[in-house]
Every structure is written in C-alpha cells, then in structure tokens.
C-alpha cells in the first residue's frame, strides 16, 4: 500500500509537515497528494478511535448477520444499499460463508437495537434470517488497543 495511506490509517492527525518528514517529501507534495486522494474518493473520511467505556455514552452495539435473497441483475447491492441508509447502521459488508451481509448497528439500548432488527430488518423484503450478537467489550480496533497501552517489555540494556 501507498506509504502515505498507511501512515494516515495509523494516525490521521499527523500534520502535513510531519508526513513530509516521514516520507521524505515536501509539505506541498503531501498536501497535493492528500487532496488528490480525497477528490478521487480514495480517502473517504477521517475518524477517531474511542474507548466508549470512558465516555458517558450508554449506547450499545450489535453485530448482525443477515441471510438475504439476492435480486436478479443487481445481486446483493440493492438490499445492502437500502440497509445502509438507516442511521442506526454503522457498517455493512458483503460476506463469504454462512451468511450474506454483516452489519454493525448502534442503538440507545438493547431494546432499541432489538426493535430495529425485528421491525426494520426482518421485515424487509428479501431478508431470510437474522442473528444478532451484542458487543460486550471492545479490546482492539483498527490496530489500536482500546484499554491498555502496549507494555514495553524491553529493559534498558543496550
């Protein structure tokens, strides 16, 4: 992968000056390249990784497996695109294996999410079955440890 994208994926808050140092480029070159990646749609956005347990939020999150009937001509795209329009849905992926779509859904409470699944998703045309798994604890996200900092086992020897 492009080294610039690699760096932004590990820390999107690196300044253009820092990125320029790290990649042996000028700040201008970095800024042009980022603009190019953004306008081409390669970079879709920037986000923060948050330990929700330290915030006041009471939101719950669930992983939902969905089995659906693909539509003639457009396969799974049509239903995936309908599902992703809901604000409650954080991510939608087409999967290989036992089920077809994997969603992450957020809600104010367990009941909230359960209602969303039963009333919105299950009722949708083409949805054959759902399985809801609530997230109990998050350990690592996008390569970053959520609770602990990595412990440096090395002692000062040389």
């Amino acid at each position, binding site marked *: 992968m492009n*080294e610039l994208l690699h*760096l932004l994926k*590990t*820390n999107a808050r690196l300044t253009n000056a*820092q990125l*320029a*140092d*790290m*990649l*042996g480029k000028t700040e201008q070159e970095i800024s042009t390249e980022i603009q190019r990646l953004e306008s081409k749609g390669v970079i879709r956005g920037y986000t923060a990784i948050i330990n929700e347990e330290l915030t006041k939020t009471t939101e719950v999150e669930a992983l939902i497996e969905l089995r659906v009937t693909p539509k003639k001509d457009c396969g799974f795209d049509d239903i995936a695109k309908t599902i992703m329009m809901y604000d409650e849905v954080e991510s939608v992926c087409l999967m290989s294996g036992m089920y077809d779509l994997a969603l992450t859904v957020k809600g104010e409470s367990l009941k909230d999410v359960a209602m969303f699944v039963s009333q919105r998703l299950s009722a949708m045309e083409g949805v054959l079955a759902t399985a809801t798994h609530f997230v109990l604890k998050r350990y690592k996200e996008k390569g970053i440890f959520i609770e602990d900092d990595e412990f*440096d086992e*090395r*002692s*000062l*020897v*040389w």
Partner: protein
Amino acid sequence: MDYESILSKRVQNMKPSGIRKFFDLAATMDGVISLGVGEPDFSTPWSIRKEAIDVLERRKIVYTANSGLAQLRESVAKYLTKKIHVDYNPEHEIIITVGGSEAIDIAIRGLINPKDEVLIVEPSFVCYSPIVEMASGVAVPIATKQENKFKLTAQELKEKITDKTKLLILPFPNNPTGAIMTREDLEPIAEVLHGTDIMILSDEIYSEMTYTGKHCSIAELDGMRERTIIVNGFSKAFAMTGWRLGYLCAPAPVTEQLVKIHQYIIMSSPTISQYAAITALESCDHEVERMVKEYNIRRRYLVEAFNRIGMTCFSPEGAFYVFPSIQCTGMSSEEFCEKLLEEEKVAVVPGNAFGESGEGFVRISYAYSLRHLMEAVGKITKFLERHGAI
C-alpha cells in the same frame, strides 16, 4: 572475605559499561520515555514463534551438533549466497552461536595472541575492547568522523596499522551512528589490507537494516573472503533478541579452531531457537521488509526533526539509530543525558559510551512507535528551549 584480592585482576580492571549507571538511574524513575534500547520493538514474526511452539510439542529438546543444526547451517549458507553473493560451506565454514555476541567473543579469542593489536572502528558497540583485553590483546581505536558520515577511510586505517596489527573490527551498518559502508567505501579499505596478514571481523548484525541500497559485505571484495570472519545473527533482522542466536562464517582453518572454544564454553546453541531460525531465513522476507519500511519512516522523521531543532544529524543509512550532535547545548554527552532525564524524563544514550569519538553526540534509537518518538521529540525540543539552545 577479601574479594578484591581473590577476584581476577583483569576482570576487576574491566570498566563497567559506561551507560549502566545511567540506565540504573532511569530504571528508578517513573514515567520515563526511553529512546535507549537497542532491540526491535516488533514482536518476532508469528511463523517463527509457531515453529518454536511446534518444536516444543514434537521434538526432544536435545543438544545439536556443536557447530549447529546442519539444516540451519545450510539455510545460512543459502541466505548469504542470496544476500551477499559469497558462498560458505555449511559443513566446515559456519558456526551457529549464542547471539552475535558469542561469535564476536570466539572470533577475537581465537585470533589474538598476547600484545596483538586489534583495530576497533569507533564509535561502535561496547563489547569489542573488553573482549580484546580479556584475550590479552591491545585495543586500538580508530575514530571515525561526522564529516565522513562516520565511515572508515583508508587514511585513518593506514595510520593505525603497525607490525603488531592482527585484526580489524569493521562494524557496519554501525551501532550507534547508523553509518554504512558501500562497496565504493570498502574498496579502498580492501586495498590497504591486500597483501597483509590482517584479518577482518565484519560485524554485520544490522545488515538487513539499510535504507538507501543493499548491504555490501567486505567479504564480497576480491581477496577479502580469505581474511574475513562475518558475524551476523537473528536478533535485529528478525526481531529475535531474546532467542539468543547468531552465527559466524569464515574459512575452514579458522572455524576449525573457533569451534573448539564454542564447544567447550557453550556446547551447542539453543535448540528451539535453531529450529525457529530456519523458518526465519526461509520464509520471513515479507516480515523483514515490512519492519524495514517502518524503520525507514521513523528514520526520516527523526533526522528532519533533529536537524530542525538544531541537533544536527547526518542522515544515517543503516541500523536503527540516529546520532545527532548536541554541540548547540554546549554540554558534554553525559551532562546532556543526565539533565534530559532529570528534567524531561527522556532517556537517550551518551555518545561517549561508544568510544571517545562519540563525545558531543547522543544515540537515539528508533525502535519505538512513531507516537512515542513524536512525544520524545516534543520533550527534547522543550529541553533545548529551556537551555537557550533554540
């Protein structure tokens, strides 16, 4: 008991490593940000660890042949042919050792007679002189200079050669400076050594960590293989420091003698590590490449950052250290390191720990995450500002 009169005079006269005291102090403090360690921050690649687990489950962990597992020696030979285009006979010319450290020890002990002179390129890793002295040899430092990018020049070498010179220790890519020697840099050195009986101990432990081209070994040059002992190992390239495994390669008449020392003091190197090392050499190119890429990003960042804040820093092309000058502070290396530790809780290593020619510099390791390095640079900047150096 009067231990002083009991213990070996030679050992008592040995200087404790220059930075021990400093590290002990750092260890008593909380929240120290260290840039001090000389080992990778990456974990050993999983395929290597998995192989070790399998070996533990499947095999009896018994001694191997003195010079190491035959299969590992074959892998080392193949690896060297691929990397430096020099062929070594796995049966007679390769010894698997306990880290590069043991390889250095037995090479020096195997060569030195009392009063033989050993030329040691400095600044460099701290173990060479004490081992030379233990072998009753005489350590003769050759100071390299920042204006030469800490490379050894033919002139500097010639000036130190006497009729007692037995061995040249050539530690490139270099710890602590990050200097490398390219083929063009090595050629004039080889020319000086041609026709002499001077041997070379080429410590190539950082050979995988070069950033501007492939590593070149002096053994590749005409007439040099016959006088060269290559020392290398798994610690740095494959992030395997704790596995304690290295190797040396030399012409058979040399290894035939050195293996006797190894046999008596070590018997054979750690068996589990040896099996795992075969996996390292044969199927971890991709992991090594990934680590080197990451080091390179950090290297470029640090060089720019230090030059910007006035700690001038030549661009190191190997290993995982930068070696900036602290001239702008007017402090000695040790003073700088002590104050930086006290005031900002950042630990770096004084350059003079690696030989007098390292005075005026500090060694900074980039075997740390970028986040860690950026935090440390921020603190060093504050420190320089407080002392009026910026």
